[in-house]
């Protein structure tokens, strides 16, 4: 057993699964897909319950059933699996069912290259819900984050009653590293609040924070109803009554109005005119580039985003203080840059992009020094 203070040789997948279980995740529903298989393998050893699903639509449906029954489900997949899951993720979002989907990005389009990492799913995640309702998306930037954000994802899904993405990439979950386990902050089970009123229980009657109290189906106290169609507070299907439309709008505002609770990013102000912005697997290169540049007397400030969706206002606010902003991400077109600055960008904003390989510190340094 690794003693605290000892350096272990581990990968990010192990940290993610250990943290999710410690935070209270109970069921892993798995369907094999590269490069997410390590997460499935660890889950099969660690989760209190593990089920092999016959496909990814079934995966999400079983997860939704577990969640409706009050058991917290997790899965791990990559784009081809996610594509099959999307309709059901929308369902879980509409039904307000807590769950975590770990998405390990690989290079597309289509089956692309299964064993090549990427950060190419941002544009898809941004608009994954019909209607544009964002699904909270946390993105680990290093080993510490793999542990912390995985636990946060479970907690957040319960807190907001909705699916949460933990967005990663092949290199983050598969690379083995020396890692000091004593760095890990303790993870305790996430709080689970169930409705305790006298009824009648309205499954979609939310408090001021926009989150309705949860009750599982099968309980003997109150009738529970879940629905994927447009509905009123009692879950009754409605075409577009004012109450039903308010409910649909609430689904958007509940993730956005509580964003302050889960706006997670690192920001280092190094007194520079240039802000280097990155996230996920490319954050490591950005950190290294920032250090190298500082040593060469060309300091840049650094923002590593960890909450990607909904987009925290702090990112544009911070970027607004800099004449130059360089967004480094492993995709062809600068997907998150476009999320932040729009199709036409902004003067002084540029990207460091690439596919089929990790973005290197040297490329970022060249762009800064250009």
């Amino acid at each position: 057993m690794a003693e605290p203070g000892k350096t272990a040789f581990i990968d990010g997948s192990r940290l993610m699964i250990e943290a999710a279980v410690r935070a209270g995740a109970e069921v892993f529903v798995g369907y094999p897909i590269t490069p997410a298989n390590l997460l499935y393998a660890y889950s099969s050893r660690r989760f209190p319950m593990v089920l092999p699903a016959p496909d990814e639509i079934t995966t999400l449906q079983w997860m939704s059933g577990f969640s409706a029954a009050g058991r917290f489900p997790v899965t791990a997949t990559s784009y081809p699996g996610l594509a099959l899951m999307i309709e059901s993720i929308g369902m879980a979002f509409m039904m307000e069912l807590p769950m975590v989907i770990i998405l390990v990005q690989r290079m597309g389009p289509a089956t692309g290259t299964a064993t090549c990492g990427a950060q190419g799913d941002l544009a898809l995640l941004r608009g994954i819900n019909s209607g544009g309702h964002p699904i909270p998306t946390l993105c680990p930037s290093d080993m510490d984050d793999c542990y912390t954000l995985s636990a946060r994802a479970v907690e957040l899904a319960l807190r907001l009653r909705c699916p949460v993405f933990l967005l990663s990439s092949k290199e983050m979950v598969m690379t083995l590293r020396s890692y000091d386990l004593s760095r890990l902050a303790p993870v305790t089970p996430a709080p689970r609040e169930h409705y305790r009123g006298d009824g009648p229980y309205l499954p979609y009657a939310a408090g001021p924070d926009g989150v309705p109290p949860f009750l599982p189906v099968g309980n003997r106290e109150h009738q529970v109803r879940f629905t994927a169609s447009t509905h009123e507070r009692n879950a009754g299907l409605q075409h577009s009554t004012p109450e039903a439309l308010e409910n649909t709008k609430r689904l958007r505002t509940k993730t956005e109005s509580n964003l302050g609770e889960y706006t997670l990013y690192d920001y280092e102000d190094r007194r520079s005119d240039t802000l280097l912005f990155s996230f996920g697997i490319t954050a490591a290169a950005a950190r290294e580039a920032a250090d190298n540049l500082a040593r060469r007397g060309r300091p840049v400030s650094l923002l590593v985003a960890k909450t990607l969706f909904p987009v925290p206002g702090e990112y544009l606010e911070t970027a607004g203080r800099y004449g130059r902003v360089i967004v480094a991400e492993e995709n062809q077109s600068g997907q998150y840059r476009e999320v932040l600055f729009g199709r036409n960008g902004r003067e002084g904003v540029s990207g460091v992009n690439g596919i089929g390989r990790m973005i290197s510190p040297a490329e970022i340094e060249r762009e800064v020094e250009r």
Partner: protein
Amino acid sequence: MSRSFLSTENLPFCSGCGHGLMARSLEKALQRIEGLNPLDLVVVTDIGCIGIIDKQFASHTVHGLHGRSVAMATGISMGLADPDKKILVLIGDGGATIGLHHIMEAAHRNIDMTVIVHNNMLYGMTGGQPSGLTPCGFRTSTMPEGRPDNGMDLCRMAHAAGAAYSRRIMALGDVSDVLEEALRVKGFSLVEAVELCTSYGVKFNPGRKLTDIAGDAGMTPVLLKNPEASAFRPEADRDTESLFHGVPAPEKRFGHNLAGKVSIILAGAAGEGVQSTAEMLALAAISCGLSVTKKGSYPVTVGVGFSLAEVIISTKEIHYTGIAGIDAVMATSREGLQRALPRIEAMKSGSVYLDASLDRPETGAELVHRDYRGPLGYRSASLLCAAHYLSRSGIFPIEALLEALSASRAGRAVDAAELLKAVEEMERAGV
């Protein structure tokens, strides 16, 4: 609490629709299950005319995606894992078509639930199109000449998949006895009720009776049972061990002579211990107080072809795990050399350790050409090469690698003394 499960007043169906008859029979059947409280019942529906029945229920209800009810109900049934609860799925033939796989999976696993498929032989909600269960000769809006072949026999398919109980009935009169029997089954039960959609079925098939349409196509009543098997319950609440338990975490026992970092590529073939050698090298580095990263790459069929590993060893914490400048390549087989060749050719410094059997590549790196596959056999070629690299580069003591070897599975197959001897001979035989 009232024992009414399902209000049959103001049902949302066209007059004469079989769904209404089924609803009335269902309420009767549920009433007869002793001790069943409405809150012990979870009704799962989805898209289609029958799906909107959920608002009539006093039980728990879930209204989901078209055809996915059975999968959602499977999750609920496994999640509740309570034999006192009843999970009831109400879908149509359209839902059974798009979600056929979910039905087979639930039947096969004998998931505790009852599925009633209201088979009116077409999609009613969307204008009367044919489904996978539409029988031969039945006319629909988009097949006005009638379907030329027969639809699937859902009951026989569910039975073959392992359903405890599958039954086809005609939705005529009072069918509450059948529904009651299905509801009492422990495990997976399916009732396919053949109905007529009064809006589209009757319109496109004027004058034809339900029993004739079904009978002409061989869609006759059937009851199929598999021997009683207990309903599937997944193993829940397993007591598992922390994933940190037993992870390799060598103590710092050695010093090192490294300044900065080295980036190493091990390039061999499957079965030569490339990945395990890379891991031993990494663990050895950790035992010298160094930071390390390791990644592997190999074809999707892991047992053949090249096997490459990248190892970075550094005195400082490593953020970026890519390799910019290569310090050493250990090429021990043709497949590995071929794979790493473009990177070897691009090297302007560093060393390439190359098995004697391989042709010398064009490179600006120093070439160290030795027999790595011979002395301990090809399975240890990678290990011998790594040991030789340590011995020549002196970045940390070779003893650290021997220590990692003895703690590993490979340690049982390789004798440390022989390894050391082979390295020493290699040095003596040096250029």
